């Protein structure tokens, strides 16, 4: 009973819920903006990595390597606490969006590269032999075929980055975790933290299942 009163205190939960909801709004916003920017930037980065002139390709490879290796938290703190020293002062939402999407773009680029390289060479040749310019054949022929392979790992990376939005609480963004933590301090009870954990689970569990489903569907398509 003591345990339930401490971790699952209904009164505290009811009082904390509106605060958590506000945090959830910020978390979802941060997650969605990051996923959109990171995915688009990642695709462009991948095309540069594959098809640009050699020196620019090397820059793209360098970018991808660095941002896959760098911990997001380190990057976030650099953006938020170090950039002001050179006069670039970004609010916590912008800092978090920037740091998260820079990293997501690097991972997305690798996923897209695998997807594009999975399309048989003959498809590129057939499109070229019909006189289709590079961008048209990319858009109409190659990417629609690559997307099947890209979607599951892309979704998986998006889930990862959505979880990493919790890091934004470190730079004082009022996201779900920060709000829960504040409520916990204010009410001197950890129930809001449990609430936040349950909300994360409720959103992300179905997406994790979705990835499993997409992967299984791809396996079947390959087997056919």
């Amino acid at each position, binding site marked *: 009973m003591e345990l339930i009163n401490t971790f699952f205190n209904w009164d505290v939960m009811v009082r904390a819920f509106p605060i958590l909801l506000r945090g959830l709004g910020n978390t979802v916003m941060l997650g969605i903006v990051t996923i959109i920017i990171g995915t688009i930037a990642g695709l462009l980065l991948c095309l540069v990595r594959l098809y640009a002139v050699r020196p620019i390709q090397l820059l793209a490879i360098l970018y991808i390597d660095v941002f896959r290796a760098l911990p997001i938290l380190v990057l976030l703190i650099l953006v938020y606490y170090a950039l002001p020293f050179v006069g670039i002062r970004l609010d916590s939402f912008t800092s978090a969006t920037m740091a998260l999407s820079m990293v997501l773009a690097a991972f997305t680029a690798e996923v897209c590269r695998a997807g594009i390289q999975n399309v048989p060479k003959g*498809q590129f040749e*057939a499109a*070229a*032999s*019909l*006189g289709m*310019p590079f961008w*048209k054949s990319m858009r109409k*022929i190659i990417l629609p075929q690559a997307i099947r392979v890209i979607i599951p790992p892309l979704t998986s990376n998006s889930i990862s980055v959505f979880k990493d939005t919790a890091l934004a609480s470190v730079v004082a963004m009022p996201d779900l975790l920060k709000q829960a933590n504040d409520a916990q301090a204010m009410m001197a009870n950890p129930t809001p933290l449990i609430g936040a954990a349950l909300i994360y689970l409720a959103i992300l569990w179905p997406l994790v299942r979705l990835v499993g489903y997409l992967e299984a569907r791809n396996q079947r398509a390959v087997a056919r």
Partner: protein
Amino acid sequence: MTSSPAPLAAQMSDVNKWYNDYHALRSINLEVARGERIVVCGPSGSGKSTMIRCINQLEKHDSGTIAVNGVTLTGDLKQLNTVRQDVGMVFQHFNLFPHLTVLENCVIAPMTVRNIARKEAEEMAMSYLSRIHIAEQAHKFPSQLSGGQQQRVAIARSLCMQPNLMLFDEPTSALDPEMVHEVLETMVSLARDGMTMLVVTHEMGFARKVADRVIFMDHGEICETAPPEDFFKSPQNERARVFLSQLIH
């Protein structure tokens, strides 16, 4: 579609190509006259495919000049795309677009490259598809067709761009034996219509039937060029003799 087709559909002079140290094409000289049907044969690795793939630059040559429909290829991408619009190619493995239906395979290039309206492009595609007896399969996906049907669709897809030169890169080599015939038949009827054709194949019956000239290649060189009746009866080149004797077995 070209305003005034040059008398030569394709011309290669002193063309060389290397893959690293491997000399894949050795000083190739070839003229393809408008309306001419040429069959290219030779052992595997002799450079036949590489040669015809140089004409639409799926392979880049290292030296010499190539002109297609009177346009000397410079390596400029825009020019190349324009040249490729008039040069159809049929591949050994069909290379149909698997995410598009048969009809969409046929209209995508005319619509996106030549800016032809969908309705007009579909009418043209359907007329080619019915010529190869595949009109009723127009809304199926390539994977739902047999190999022979897929290859005929690939031919129709090329024709929808209304090319004036068709390149065939071993079009029947990947087919089950019983499907070779239907594809060859389509190619014969194309030849009868006066299409300029450059065909890499081991189908000697096809060569006898439609070729104006047979070219024999070995080790990246053109060893012999002759009308089919002479080539098959009395090949001058020793390697060609050996090659033909092996085919008969």
